């Protein structure tokens, strides 16, 4: 399936250039909402984290959360943006039932951060993504659609609205048009969103949980004929909430749009939604009225003019950012750039870092996460981080190997037990009884048995063809059901046959 898509994609790219635009919404991890003192805990009972302000009651007024502003500035600084000396909030006017005031308090032509750039690595290639702006705004409430078959709007009889999320601070990061990525476009989009996620997590301004919607992307895709300078009509796929979905959305839209244009059709500028189950994007209802948000400066809030000294202090206090950390750790770990890329691609960077921190050598940590564990993740169709194994487990496993208590094969067996939720590696090893046989008396008996059973081979080894010992090792491993250390067995065979 993937290879077919790649083939199709290559065909599309022979005729069209793709232009991407990404709008990433980051829900900040402030204790309270952007404009009121309501708490922001995820998963609270519906409508228990609301007040007159975030419920949009008549007469209620907003007051800006200082930490919300600070977080936005930190994000801007990390993305190399200029920080506005003076900026304002604006009202974005449109009606929607989960938006209490029927306008969103946002920023329009005066964002707090603007004009930055972010480098992302894709297959060894560095792509610089221009950042148009990062601005502050508030989240909406959440609607649950009732009565339909699928919980979606279509077919529902009515909807229920919970305003707990309404007013939670968001920073929206908007890229400049991303051109020239070609076949890498899906991967670039994914890498960019991953980089934003990692940066905001490193900054400590968001928990960056894509599965909980605290980082979500609006993905804009358009095609233009190769060599054209004017961008084609774009579609915007809203609220894509996993890295994999970002990648699939770009790929799907490229193929879909190309097919339409090839057939002489035109792309409709519209918002679309990505369906995780089908891997397709779906268009929304065509609106009878063109969108006109009637932005104007929010009269209930006064301008924000960050003190340059404050901005400089925040700049000085920025933590080490993911790109710098990657460069440092690559050196510390002594890994090759291809190895690092493989780690990036697998999303294993932090897992490996944590595993190394827990005492494992970088190469061993890399092997586990990119080998056996990646295979499990692929089979299960999940991200590495979603597996039921922690860096601490991997470190423990490796130390059992290093201590001679597990060999590679046994370690894999133990790992599958850990993945199955049977406990820590040591617990699994004990309960499954798979520890390496280290009792030399028992091993010697097994070796002698193997020699007796394979006189021809034994003779070859005696005569100096040490390589032939492998057959005997295999025989011993078989009789001990793999619970022996192959190296020890080999040494024992050679010494019994006096081959040295």
């Amino acid at each position, binding site marked *: 399936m993937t290879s077919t898509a790649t083939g199709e994609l290559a065909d599309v790219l022979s005729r069209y250039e793709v232009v991407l635009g990404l709008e990433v919404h980051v829900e900040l991890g402030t*204790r*309270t909402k952007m404009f*009121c*003192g*309501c*708490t922001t805990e995820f998963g609270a*009972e*519906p*409508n*228990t*984290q*609301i*007040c*007159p302000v*975030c*419920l949009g009651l008549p007469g209620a007024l907003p*007051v*800006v*959360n*200082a*930490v*919300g*502003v600070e977080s936005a500035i930190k994000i801007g600084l990390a993305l190399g943006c200029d920080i506005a000396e003076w900026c*304002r909030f604006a009202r974005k006017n449109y*009606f*929607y*039932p989960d*938006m209490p005031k029927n306008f969103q308090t946002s920023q329009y032509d005066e964002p707090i951060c603007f004009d930055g750039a972010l480098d992302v690595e894709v297959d060894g290639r560095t792509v610089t993504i221009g950042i148009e702006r990062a601005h502050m705004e508030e989240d909406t409430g959440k*609607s*649950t*659609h*009732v*009565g339909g078959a699928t919980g979606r*709007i279509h077919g*529902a*009889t*009515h*909807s*229920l*609205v*919970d*305003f707990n999320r309404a007013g939670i601070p968001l920073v929206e990061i908007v890229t400049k048009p991303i051109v020239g990525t070609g076949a890498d476009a899906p991967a670039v989009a994914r890498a960019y969103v991953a980089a934003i996620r990692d940066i905001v997590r490193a900054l400590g301004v968001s928990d960056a949980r894509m599965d909980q919607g605290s980082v979500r992307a609006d993905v804009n895709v358009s095609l233009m004929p190769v060599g054209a300078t004017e961008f084609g009509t774009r579609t915007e796929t*809203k609220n894509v909430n996993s890295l994999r979905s970002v990648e699939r959305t770009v790929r799907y839209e490229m193929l879909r749009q190309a097919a339409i244009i090839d057939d002489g059709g035109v792309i409709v500028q519209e*918002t679309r*939604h990505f369906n995780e189950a089908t891997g397709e994007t779906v268009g*929304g*209802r065509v609106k*009878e*009225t063109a*969108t006109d948000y*009637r932005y*104007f*400066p929010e*009269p209930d*809030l*006064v*301008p*924000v*003019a960050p*003190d340059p000294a404050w901005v400089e202090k925040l700049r000085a206090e920025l933590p080490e950012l993911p790109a710098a950390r990657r460069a440092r750790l690559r050196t510390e770990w002594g890994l090759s750039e291809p190895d690092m890329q493989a780690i990036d691609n697998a999303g294993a960077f932090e897992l490996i870092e944590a595993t190394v921190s827990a005492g494992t050598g970088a190469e061993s940590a890399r092997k586990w996460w990119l080998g056996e564990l990646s295979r499990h993740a692929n089979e299960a169709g999940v991200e590495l981080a979603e597996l039921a194994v922690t860096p601490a487990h991997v470190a423990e496993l490796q130390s059992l190997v290093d201590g001679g208590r597990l060999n590679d094969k046994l370690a894999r067996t133990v790992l599958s037990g850990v993945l199955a939720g049977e406990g820590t590696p040591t617990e699994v090893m004990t309960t499954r009884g798979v520890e390496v046989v280290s009792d030399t008396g028992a091993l010697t008996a097994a070796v002698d048995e193997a020699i007796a059973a394979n006189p021809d081979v034994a003779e070859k080894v005696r005569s100096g063809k040490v390589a032939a010992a492998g057959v005997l090792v295999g025989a011993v491993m078989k009789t001990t059901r793999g619970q022996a250390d192959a190296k020890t067995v080999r040494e024992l065979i050679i010494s019994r046959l006096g081959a040295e």
Partner: protein
Amino acid sequence: MAAISREEVAHLARLARLAVTEDELDTFAGQLDQILHSVERVGEVAADDIPPTSHAVPLTNVMRPDEPRPGLSREAALAGAPAAEDHRFRVPRILSEEA
């Protein structure tokens, strides 16, 4: 310059979510046209170099600390709701995913 048509009034009514009647469309078209004609003289005086004023008082950086404050009880919040169900505000089926 103003001259606002009946169709424009209908468009404004849709944007503003007002289900105006046919009679109102006629009345409002005439009245809005008259009002716009009388206010369009704002264009006569303000030169390009005049900055706009959005706020009466020139304050900046009014912010609050990130400290939780008690809000409304769920009962109080839902008390005024035209319809509620399962501790949420109940609304009729929604046509579009986005506004």
